[in-house]
């Protein structure tokens, strides 16, 4: 069992292998379709992003509203392939980790290798489980996007699998 503390342990990404079970502690940024479109547009316009993307990890998810007693509502991963058009630009700007579910396109795999990044698969549908691994949650940008807003999520023992490692090896 491998434990990673993000964003500090991104130096260890090069040692991860496809199929490794990893438990994440630390900070990840929730962003899905609509937020990705905005981040992509900001990059193309050379404008600053709403969070520091260097060594950051994004989590493709659209949570349920916060429930009393929990930092966030149910928050399982969404399908990653829809973010494929935006991902290489984000990786080229310093993004190191991605958490989602399902296979990625060829351009994304190439960009993962080029940037020494890692793609983790979270367990789709396990929304309540992942909410129970959240310690705190902070709104970062775009509240008008509702469940598609960007949040900083602090997690503990967040279970994932290395789906595509930094050499491009894949479990799919």
């Amino acid at each position, binding site marked *: 069992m491998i434990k990673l503390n993000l964003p500090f342990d991104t130096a260890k990404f090069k040692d991860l292998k496809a199929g490794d079970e990893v438990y994440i502690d630390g900070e990840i940024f929730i962003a899905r379709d609509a937020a990705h479109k905005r981040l992509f547009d900001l990059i193309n316009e050379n404008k600053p992003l709403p969070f520091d993307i260097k060594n950051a990890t994004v989590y493709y998810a659209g949570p349920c509203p916060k429930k009393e007693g929990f930092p966030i509502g149910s928050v399982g991963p969404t399908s990653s392939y829809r973010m494929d058009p935006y991902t290489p630009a984000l990786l080229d700007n310093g993004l190191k980790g991605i958490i989602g579910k399902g296979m990625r396109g060829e351009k994304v795999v190439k960009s993962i290798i080029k940037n020494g990044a890692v793609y983790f698969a979270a367990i*789709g*549908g396990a929304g309540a489980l992942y909410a129970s691994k959240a310690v705190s949650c902070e709104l970062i940008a775009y509240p008008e996007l509702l469940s598609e807003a960007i949040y900083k999520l602090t997690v503990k023992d967040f279970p994932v699998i290395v789906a595509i490692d930094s050499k491009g090896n894949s479990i799919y």
Partner: protein
Amino acid sequence: MRIIDTSKIEETVYDLALSACVSVTPECEEKMRTAESVENNPLSLFALKNMNENFNVANKTGLPVCQDTGIACVMLSIGQDVYFTGKLLSDAIYDGVKRAYSDGAFRKSVLDPITRENTGDNTPAMIYTEIVSGDKVTVEFLPKGFGSENMSKIYMLTPADGVDGVIDKIVETVKNSGSKPCPPVYVGVGIGGTFDKCAYLAKKALTRPIGSKNPREDVSKIEEEALKRINELNIGAQGFGGKTTALGVSVEVMPTHIAGLPVAVNIQCHCVRAKKAVI
């Protein structure tokens, strides 16, 4: 004639929605525990353990099983001796959905398809009605997630394709969807009718308990054969490989035109959520 105020429908939809989104059906839970107990692919086992643990957490906390609390599918079988009073039936259903998705802290996932602007309250619900004999109203509630809905397909086969062609299409649809619909999946199939009726049958098939057999022997054989072939695909939980790619296949049929053989395949993820009440 029996008079039913639509406020009764609203309350029923509200209650069903609140409970449906936070738990899976008992048949789903049982099949998922079995899938975990027979699996020996380590990645798939990791997935199944976490999926089953997720059911436990949802049961304990009342958090939605999956954050995709779906588009609300409401199926009504209305006895023709029923006379509705009160607000418009569809408004009553929408109000039940609005209140449940707000009170339950469920995700509002419904938006305009052109502007992509969220309606803000998870309405409209998808309402399906059938008029039946008697004076009862059966309400079935399915919160339908779109990771799996997006993988669904309809095929207008030719009569020459026959039953073998039908089974091939069912298996092919699951194969092509790979990891995307959060397998192990539950497969609802419609055969016959018209283009639209066939799709409805496929959705209706998903309201049947997993493992239930179609009363027609020739149809239940299609269910069996398709399930067997799907579980040989080695897609497994989350597409990680393994023994269980589907928990079940349910097929509903109706007569069709001499020139056609429509087949609809509606995919449901492993979080099979459905609740039913009779008024």
